[in-house]
């Protein structure tokens, strides 16, 4: 862990040097605009954990850039009984933002609330987790924000994170202030002001007007933003854009038609022109950089094969494809798919509301651990949980292949996520799964 921190500090220092600042200093308010408009910051909320929860709440484990579990609120963990029983040792000296000490009972209660099928017990300074089946990736699962530790008091969630909520206007605005009692040292920033529910265009406008320091950049605008001279920090392609069927195929005809659909889509053109290379074409659920075998699943357009499959499908009813009406890129991608399938004799009707056969989805990454990410993707797509026979890449491949063979999902692209930061923002960092790490961020005086 120490080595990891050293590397991180070194990178931050290099970044600071590059920006002409050599020494971080305290103070200042970071202004951020985001697209997400959560109704709650509570990681155990019904709407799921917001990535913004990482400002206030922390997990027992964090994943590094390679997806390896690293200690955070937990110092170490130990598997017992063939990965069905895990003993998690807690860090001492950690306090919640209200100065209450982090203890095993509180952690156990938080984990029980987030995982109904787990049996969680406090055992001294450790927490014991028992599961019905072996879970070799349980430490990585503990890194999910949904498993962040939260203590509820008076219907209010309290975390151990570097910031605490000073004001929250659900869906509109979130004000955070520094947690002076933060166990890992007070953050440099005094406060963070986050504008919620701003689309990319609004964010860009706020940025240009100097009203925000950090904004999200749409994948298709990454190159444009860079060309415009903005500082853009982008991730590896990780968010999955896919077509998801509402139901499995009901006949061999429909199965052939779905094969034809998957093969008719020109993912390369979509990525290159529509997304402006803001991602990469894929036929897999997990990105190639994460799984190592993603290239095995064909992502290219194969019109001839698609036509052959279409010929095998004697009777096909037109599909209805629903897309996000508020996202112009989604509309263009949906229309492109409509054109592509028309070339092989299939028909797709577009819809922006109501029931549909197909949905064009974008699923944000949740974990840099391939096994956990695959499980979370299956859950998000309404697919059965993948059956992992072991921890090897072959086992992962077999599980992913099985999911794809349900023909309920057609992967299209893995998209990058990116932010544009103002020049006076230093040490901006995010995890591989997109969580922002702002405890080390500091602000320098902005040059006129």
């Amino acid at each position, binding site marked *: 862990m120490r080595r990891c921190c050293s590397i991180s500090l070194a990178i931050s220092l290099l970044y600071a040097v590059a920006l002409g600042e050599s020494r971080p200093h305290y103070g200042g308010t970071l202004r951020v605009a985001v697209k997400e408009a959560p109704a709650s910051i509570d990681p155990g909320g019904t709407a799921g954990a917001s990535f913004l929860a990482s400002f206030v709440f922390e997990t027992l484990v964090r994943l590094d850039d390679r997806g390896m579990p690293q200690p955070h609120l937990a110092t170490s963990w130990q598997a017992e009984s063939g990965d069905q029983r895990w003993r998690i040792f807690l860090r001492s000296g950690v306090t919640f933002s209200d100065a209450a000490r982090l203890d095993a009972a509180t952690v156990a209660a938080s984990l029980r609330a987030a995982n109904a099928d787990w049996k969680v017990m406090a055992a001294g300074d450790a927490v014991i987790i028992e599961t019905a089946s072996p879970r070799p990736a349980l430490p990585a699962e503990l890194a999910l924000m949904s498993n962040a530790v939260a203590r509820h008091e008076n219907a209010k969630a309290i975390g151990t994170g570097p910031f605490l909520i000073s004001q929250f206007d659900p869906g509109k605005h979130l004000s955070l202030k520094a947690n002076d009692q933060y166990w890992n040292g007070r953050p440099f920033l005094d406060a963070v002001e986050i504008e919620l529910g701003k689309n990319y265009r609004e964010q860009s406008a706020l940025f240009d007007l100097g009203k925000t320091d950090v904004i999200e950049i749409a994948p298709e605008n990454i190159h444009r933003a860079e060309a415009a001279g903005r500082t853009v920090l982008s991730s590896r392609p990780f968010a999955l854009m896919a077509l998801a069927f509402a139901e499995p195929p009901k006949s061999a005809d429909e199965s052939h038609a779905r094969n034809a659909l998957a093969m008719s889509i020109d993912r390369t053109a979509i990525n290159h022109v*529509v997304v*402006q290379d803001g991602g990469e074409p894929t036929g897999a659920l997990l990105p190639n950089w994460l799984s190592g075998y993603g290239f095995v699943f064909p992502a290219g357009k194969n019109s001839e094969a698609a036509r052959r499959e279409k010929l095998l499908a004697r009777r096909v009813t037109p599909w209805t494809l629903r897309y996000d009406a508020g996202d112009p890129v989604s509309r263009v*991608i949906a*229309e492109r798919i409509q*054109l592509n399938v028309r070339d092989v004799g299939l028909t797709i009707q577009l819809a922006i509301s109501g029931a549909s056969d197909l949905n064009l989805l974008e699923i944000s990454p949740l974990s840099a651990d391939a096994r956990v990410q695959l499980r979370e993707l299956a859950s998000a797509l309404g697919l059965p949980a993948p059956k992992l026979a072991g921890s090897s890449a072959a086992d992962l491949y077999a599980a992913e292949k099985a999911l794809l063979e349900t023909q309920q999902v057609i992967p299209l692209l893995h998209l990058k996520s990116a932010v544009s930061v103002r020049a006076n923002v230093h040490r901006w960092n995010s995890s591989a799964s997109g969580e922002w790490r702002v405890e080390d961020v500091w602000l320098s005086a902005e040059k006129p």
Partner: protein
Amino acid sequence: MSFRRRLLVMFALTVLVSVAPVALIVSTMARRALDRANDERTVALVAQFRREFNRRGGEVARRIQAIVAAPETNRMTVAAAKPSPDYSPFLDDAQVLADAQRLDYLELADDHGTIISSAQWPAKFGYIETLIKPGLPSGPFLKHEETPSGAELGLFVVHAIPVAEHKIFVIGGLRLDQSFLASIDLPAGMRALLYENLDYASDRFVREHLIGASGSPHDPMAFAPIVQQVLRGGKEATSIVESDNGEESVDAIPLTGDDNQVLGVLLVGSSRQIYAELRNQIRSAALLAAGSGLVLAILLSSWLSARVTRPVEKLARAAHEVAAGNWNAHVEVFTGDEIGQLADTFNRMTGELLQQQDRLVQAERVAAWRELARRLGHELKNPLFPLQLTVENLIRSRELGQQEFHETFRESSTTLLAEISHLKTIVSRFSDFARMPQPQFQRVELKELLENVAKVYQAQLSKSNISCEVTTSGSIAADPDLLHRALSNLILNAIDAMPQGGTLRVSASSEQHSARFEVSDTGKGLTSDESARLFTPYYTSKSGGTGLGLAIVQSIVSDHGGRISVRSELGKGTTFIIELPSNAEKLSSAWSART
């Protein structure tokens, strides 16, 4: 129909026959003139629409020129000049340029026809625009454009930008839709509709494809025939269409593409409502004038016909009076024309008739007195002669012995008394005829009446060897005594007519409103002359008759409101027929009078 009405109808028909053609001619000429004016207006409006259409095309061309000069287009041409151009950065440029130039359609394509950027269908990048081929249209043209929501009809202009040895094509246009139609200034009473022929293979009319400036017309099917006519023939057509907008003169213009396919049909409708109203006003005025003239003519005709027919009617009434027996009828004469002469002649005729009647009455009266005198003389002479002989014999017997005188005196006294009695009988009969009483009506059973009459004469009939047949039924309102008397007279006449015996048939029958009596004998019958004079008073064909019997019968029958007739044939017999009304009302009035 009266003469006056006939005259009135003739006058009215004469006026109608005169006025109706005039009204028809005026109405027809007015309609033709209005139709001609309306057609000219429609032609002018269609020409105006064509100019507007062309102006729009020029406007699209100007906007395309602006796009050609835009920096985005310039960057695109620079990229196109590279050996392996990457057009991905220009995906949104068409949309930006189209928005800036307010174009509904804009596509930028390279010289292979590959779409670089499309405003109407951004996802169509990389696809081939089939329009790009040798012989591009130089001016505005119509084209069906595919969009994600379906095919649409647009007015397009294409412009080629040379880039080294390559070209960039700018294809822009405006949608021919509701807003396009609404943006065209049209005079009041005119509207433009557009039918988009999205299915070349069929000339079937699809009502949803017909749009107007304010949306779909309420009655699109009204335009189906003319649209299909244009789709089939490919030529302009004109028709009168009755739609929700009223009656319209519709000019249908085929909108063809560069391959001469009918892509749509422009319908320029010019409301005929104003003309229809004007025509209706003229027609109403004509009808009003004709109607008023007709009414006036009828009124005048009434007055004239009344004026003309009044003397004739007076004449007719006078003639009726004369026919009814009033010969004193007189017609006033006011004019000296033919009618006046006719009235004067009529008056003179009635005067003459009156004089003739007076003369006739006097002659008849004299004749009657003569006949009465003759009859009285005859009747009185018969008993007077025996009286004279008896008195003379009595005088002569004074000279005979007492015994003989007494015997003669006794015989003469007897004879004298008998003859005097005969004279009294004669006088009594005349007196009875003069004093015929008015009938006293009551319910009379016919059977009972006839049986009573027959019973009276039963002995006499047997003695005369006459068989009697009586058939009867029903009842009647009558005076039974008078009726008994009348029937007795007829039966006595029948007995007298059959001195050698025979058959007497007496029948009576009643119906709802009348009763019929028949008394028949099988005697020698009557001649036609005798039959004609039979009911003349004091006429008799019998040697000892007074000629009053049948006169009394006729008087009784007349007093009962009936009539008597005779049917006789020589050698076969005579039948007297009495027909009486039921006189039921007299029965009730008689009852009221008694109570």
